[in-house]
């Protein structure tokens, strides 16, 4: 339903652009001539990412609000197609995989240039990846690369970051090489069918060694205007805590964006951002749950809503290592007790969709038949409690742990209420500040049940999802620690199988296992809701866009300002 809303709005934009959005790879940027397009001096886009990036160095970024640098000031090797079915060329025009699945060869664009005009060469890529994997940099998002994939990187955790020789040996031993200026080769330790997706991440960019050497290894990007990237935009100016301005990179190899000036503000206060959208100081605004009513009740704003499904799933995480949730029947009762329809329609004001399975719609490998075992059914929930064989006192006064953020409190007060009403129990909410929840409770496995836990896709491959529930992810990516050997095996097979259909079958089995065992109670999928002024057109959104500042941020060069 939400999907159709998003698409309907989108269909109203001129046909040329629609055609491009659907088959972008074929269409490229040939959509430049459009009679409706405003002149260049009006091509100004104003967005809000809510928070200033913690770092302008793509290697050191980890948060969604930092995406605009990694995705637009820099360009990764490959990028997802709009339908997210596959990857397409970005900084690399094409890539080959050796028959054993271990060597990836990326053919870099011949005419690729940095924003200062110097050519982008393969050694810049080697340096960017080496620096990312340098233990002394302690880059936050290194996980998708070092745990199994790049040859030599498995040692990451054993290198003492203070031992410069050891660090150097480690870096030079990585499977990264530049056979010539336009070929970048990565050797993997084991076959990984998803590796093409991993290199679409915004942290995986080339870095200029000469600039880093001059300005400082970890601090070279402290002054945002010093950042030289290979993406379609470059940073022209930054006012700390206020905004950053991007302008087209004149040296970009491909089609230049239509937007001539992209001002992204760092307004964290939702009321302030809301009023700025109203006064026309912002063109795009993410709508938080608390502001949804203000949008719904205003016909003009309601018409400017841009909804699109986002690849994420949220659930209640139960601690399988502790009573009472080491009992599968108690876990089933929890899942059965929560009415997801009231949740999404009333509590979440229509911003969410109900889910009962792990992989959300829109992901490669989404299997609609999964998830029915978690249906809302209080009677079955009560029966499950009976079947658990436990005395009522074992599960009557559970504490539901949650973070003290507005949305979490809103949702979890509802969950506790549902369980108490539908199962006749006496649960309470245990609210702690965010750092305490993670550090003192979750990481130490010191909790009974925690909500809302969830996952958002880094890329639309199921490996990114199933890996989090493996034994290795215990107290790191998953909190309940199911630690199930058969699940681990299925996921390992799925990760390394070369044929997509084989991978799919392994992952589906893994999904069925976790759903039947009620490892978690799947609850909802968050739909991105943005307000977009009618004159901002050409947005082609995907489920992994950072709607927090701009839907369609993966394909920014199709966005333009129409005459108004």
């Amino acid at each position, binding site marked *: 339903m939400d999907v159709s809303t998003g698409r309907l709005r989108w269909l109203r934009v001129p046909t040329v652009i629609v055609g491009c959005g659907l088959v972008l790879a074929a269409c490229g940027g040939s959509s430049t001539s459009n009679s409706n397009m405003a002149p260049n001096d009006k091509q100004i886009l104003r967005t809000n990412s809510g928070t*200033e990036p*913690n*770092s302008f*160095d793509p290697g*050191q970024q*980890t948060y969604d609000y930092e995406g605009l640098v990694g995705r637009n000031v820099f360009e990764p090797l490959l990028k997802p197609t709009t339908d997210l079915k596959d990857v397409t060329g970005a900084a690399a025009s094409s890539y080959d995989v050796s028959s054993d699945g271990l060597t990836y060869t990326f053919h870099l664009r011949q005419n690729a240039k940095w924003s200062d005009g110097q050519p982008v060469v393969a050694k810049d890529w080697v340096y960017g990846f080496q620096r990312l994997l340098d*233990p*002394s940099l*302690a*880059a*936050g*998002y*290194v*996980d998708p690369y070092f745990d199994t994939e790049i040859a030599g990187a498995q040692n*990451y*955790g054993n290198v003492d*970051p*203070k031992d410069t020789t050891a660090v150097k040996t480690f870096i030079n031993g990585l499977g990264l090489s530049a056979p010539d200026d336009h070929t970048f080769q990565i050797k993997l330790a084991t076959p990984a069918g998803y590796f093409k997706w991993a290199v679409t991440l915004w942290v995986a960019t080339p870095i200029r060694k000469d600039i880093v050497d001059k300005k400082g290894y*970890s*601090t070279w*990007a*402290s002054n945002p205007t010093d950042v030289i990237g290979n993406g379609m935009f470059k940073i022209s100016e930054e006012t*700390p*805590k*206020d905004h950053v301005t991007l302008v087209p990179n004149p040296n970009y190899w491909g089609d230049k964006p239509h937007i001539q000036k992209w001002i992204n503000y*760092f*307004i*964290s*206060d939702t*009321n*302030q951002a809301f*009023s*700025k959208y*109203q*006064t026309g100081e912002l063109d795009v605004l993410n709508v938080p749950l608390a502001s949804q009513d203000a949008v719904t009740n205003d016909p003009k704003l309601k018409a400017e809503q841009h909804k699109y499904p986002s690849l994420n799933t949220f659930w209640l995480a139960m601690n399988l290592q502790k009573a009472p949730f080491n009992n599968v029947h108690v876990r089933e009762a929890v899942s059965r007790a929560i009415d997801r329809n009231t949740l999404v329609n009333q509590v979440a004001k229509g911003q969410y969709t109900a889910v009962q399975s792990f992989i959300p719609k829109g992901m490669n490998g989404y299997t609609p038949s999964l998830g029915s075992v978690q249906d809302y059914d209080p009677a079955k929930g009560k029966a499950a409690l009976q079947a658990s064989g436990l005395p009522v006192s074992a599960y009557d006064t559970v504490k539901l742990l949650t*973070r003290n*953020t507005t949305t979490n409190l809103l949702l979890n007060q509802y969950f506790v209420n549902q369980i108490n009403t539908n199962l006749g129990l006496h649960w309470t909410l245990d609210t*702690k*500040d*965010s*750092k*305490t*929840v*993670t*550090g*003192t409770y979750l*990481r130490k496995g010191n909790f009974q049940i925690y909500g809302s*836990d*969830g*996952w*958002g896709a*880094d890329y639309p491959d199921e490996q990114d999802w199933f890996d989090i529930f493996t034994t290795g992810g215990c107290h*790191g*990516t998953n909190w309940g620690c199911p630690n199930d050997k058969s699940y681990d095996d299925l996921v390992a097979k799925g990760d390394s199988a070369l044929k997509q259909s084989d991978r799919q079958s392994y992952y589906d089995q893994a999904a069925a296992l976790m759903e039947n065992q009620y490892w978690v109670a799947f609850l909802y999928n968050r739909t991105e809701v943005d307000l977009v002024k009618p004159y901002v057109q050409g947005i082609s959104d995907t489920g992994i866009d950072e709607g927090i500042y701009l839907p369609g941020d993966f394909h920014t060069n199709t966005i333009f300002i129409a005459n108004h």
Partner: protein
Amino acid sequence: MAVAKGAPARGALLSIRLPRSRGANLALYIARRILWMIPVLLFVITLTFLLMHLAPGSPWDRGGGRQLSATIVQNLNTKYGLDKPLPQQFELYIWNVAHFDFGLSYQYENQTVTHILLESWGPTFTIGVLAFALIVPFGIGIGVIAALRQNTWVDFLAVGFSTFGASVPNFVIGILLIIVFSVEAYHLTGGNVFLPPGGFGLDFHVVLPVIALATLPIAYIARLTRSSTLDVLRQDYVRTAWAKGLRERLVVMRHVLKNSLIPVVTALGPTFAFLITGSVIIETVFAIPGIGRSFVVAVSSRDYPMILATTILYSVLIAVANLIVDLLYTVIDPRVRLS
């Protein structure tokens, strides 16, 4: 009111007897007050440092999504020196602070705390100065007028205002202002005319936060001025002045105001301290990117260097403000002697 807060009543710190010239006295007094700040700051730093390290959760814990792996956490601890034993970290910190090095922020990777504080200083300073500029004339003006028109409707209004202003929390005032001038104005004018509910800019943006911040101190100063003016009005020399038939303005200016302001000056110290802590609240209500707001964010993200540096900065500001007020006091009231 006694000597303002932060002042040692009878300092035993420096009891060297020097020649009794006023200049030397003053210099000695200032030196002693500045020296006294050192143990105060040490105490502030020690307590804050200990508390912070008792705080649950680490700076590297995430609010959700992918957590940093144990290896990366360990590497980050190494990078920021958090792997060292606590006494050693403390020693290092004190040493660095003595050299005005407040370290790197944990939250904004690779930015120095000094850099962040300098960035956030502008909005905090602007709002504070504008509020102060309102407090002195309005506070004193309302107080004096109320006293001169005692028991009239003017007085009644002034007392009503100052009671309300001194009793209602400033964030409540801020929210009431937002509801009236932003939300309702927005709804009534169809979104055409309303004041910005937040953010910073040297335009309409400052109106609501400055009013919200200044209301309480204005009320407080008005109250104080009113009662001290009433005291002065009862003094013999004022009665004489009236009896001589001097014009009202002259009496007020020459006799009343000068003397009634003495207790008000001492109140400026606490007022300044209030503006500083008030900025934490007001900057949160109005989403102003100042120091107070970054402090609130730093506490929740366990950005230890940022928390420490802000606490130190605010302590120093309060101490310096009190010193200035005490010095001012001696200028206005020649009877007061520096000990």
